[in-house]
């Protein structure tokens, strides 16, 4: 039984379905990466897993427990963390307060975690009293990921965490994600920097028109010339 098991999800906005039986599974401590063309429904699938979209069919299980009916904030309490693709910071709160909000549900002392986030993204330490809305695109992205890390989730979901970050930070980020996964946290992420992402992925999903087109290990997908040509830019 996978740690996260979202099977046969069908749903969408309004009357039309975007997801047509999409399945996503992540094992404990592993990294799963979703790739696919724009508009394939990747973000929609992430939202569905997080309960921000009502499913018409299918179910979502976390650690064996069916959470299909839970609200997003209840899922946060169950140990899920999510970085959305857009609007992922609190613009008029300082960087530090953004991170504090990430730790909102934590009762324990979170200064350590914050320290770790600052080490990961040193620029944030310099800017910690600045409002997140005044940061550059890539800096915001770092705040967003940092916020999710503050939750200390059991399952971390990232929607294009590296969009707009510089190569060096991207490397740092992927490094960190591997480290995080090693501590037993499961990672589910959407990436357009697909080749780098699949490299570190234990499992890769290629999503097309709301359904799984290919599912394999990251390396195997990378090796598939058809996948490379059509989805990974050659």
């Amino acid at each position: 039984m996978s740690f996260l098991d979202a099977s046969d999800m069908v749903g969408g906005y309004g009357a039309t379905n975007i997801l047509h039986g999409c399945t996503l599974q992540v094992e404990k401590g592993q990294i799963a990466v979703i790739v696919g063309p724009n508009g394939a429904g990747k973000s929609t699938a992430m939202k569905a897993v997080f309960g921000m979209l009502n499913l018409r069919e299918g179910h979502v299980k976390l650690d064996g427990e069916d959470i299909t009916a839970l609200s997003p904030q209840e899922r946060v309490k169950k140990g899920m963390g999510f970085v959305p693709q857009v609007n992922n910071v609190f613009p008029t709160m300082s960087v530090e307060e953004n991170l504090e909000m990430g730790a909102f549900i934590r009762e324990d002392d979170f200064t350590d975690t914050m320290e770790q986030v600052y080490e990961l993204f040193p620029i944030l330490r310099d800017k910690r009293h600045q409002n997140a809305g005044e940061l550059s695109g890539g800096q915001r992205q770092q705040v967003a990921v940092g916020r999710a890390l503050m939750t200390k989730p059991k399952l971390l979901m990232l929607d294009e965490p590296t969009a707009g970050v510089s190569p060096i930070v991207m490397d740092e980020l992927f490094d960190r994600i591997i480290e995080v996964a090693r501590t037993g946290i499961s990672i589910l992420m959407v990436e357009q920097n697909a080749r780098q992402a699949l490299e570190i992925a234990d499992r890769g999903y290629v999503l097309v028109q709301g359904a799984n087109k290919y599912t394999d290990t990251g390396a195997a997908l990378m090796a598939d010339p058809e996948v490379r040509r059509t989805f990974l830019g050659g």
Partner: protein
Amino acid sequence: MDILNALVAITNYILIPATAYGSQLALGALGVTLIYGILRFSNFAHGDTMAFGTAITIMVTWGLQAMGVSFGPLPTALLALPVGIAATAVLVLATDKLVYSYYRRVRAAPVVIVMVSVGVMFMMNALTRFLIGVDDINFADGARFVITAREFRDMTGLAEPLPIRSSQIITIVMAALIVAALFWFLNRTRTGKSMRAFSDNEDLALLSGINPSRVVAVTWIIAAALATTAGVLYGLDKSFKAFNYFHLLLPIFASAILGGLGNPLGAIAGGFVIAFSEIGVTYAWKKVAGYLLPAFEPDGLLQLLSTEYKFAVSFVILIAVLLFKPTGLFKGKSV
């Protein structure tokens, strides 16, 4: 030349009343700004919320007075205030549940919610009048003055009096306390921060595990407390009349905007600017000039503008400020 009398006259007719009025506006504006900042709409029902809270407080005050309870030199209404706040909180929470929550859920445009609040305003307006009628009600008891005009004259021998009413002192003190408490709450406590987070990015607040219904509820409760307190202090200082509370809405909004919407500090500054400009610009300086330059006998009143224009003046100042600081004195939000 008689500087002392001139100073006393200025204090008596400008400084003290403007400070008290400014505090009342500030408290009202705080409520408006809070709702705007967190729930993101301009609440036109705020004036009538104030009226409702005050009406309940008055009825409880009557009850207490009938039972012979009093609060020493302080007005009995202060004892009744918590009940008023509680009742108002219940009312606004119920309103939120029945009315506003739906629009939050469907993510209606802010202007739609503003119109909804106009609807709520009509209904609360009627409710208050059903409860307590339309009459002018005076419910201040306790000591009216800290020092009366005559006492002051006798004490100092000055020609000009400087009476100080207890309601003015109570208003200023309460306003200061409440503002300090609110600041501490919003900037230091977890709930306060979660409210700011919610106001910034509602979706992300959810993803951080912040419970939106709690934030909304706390916001309404605080708003109810602010509204009721502002209403009662205003009523103690002047008198209660349901109709006036609707009219209070305009200067309150002006204060909130002038200071910068969503910014509590701004609401306070805005309140004082409006109050001082209303009173200061239309003041007739004849008497003061008479004290300062006894030789100079002015024909006119030395009044910049007649008092009919006091409201207009405060709006002119508002617009002038906005031209230089487009989101208010303290950098407010805009949806």
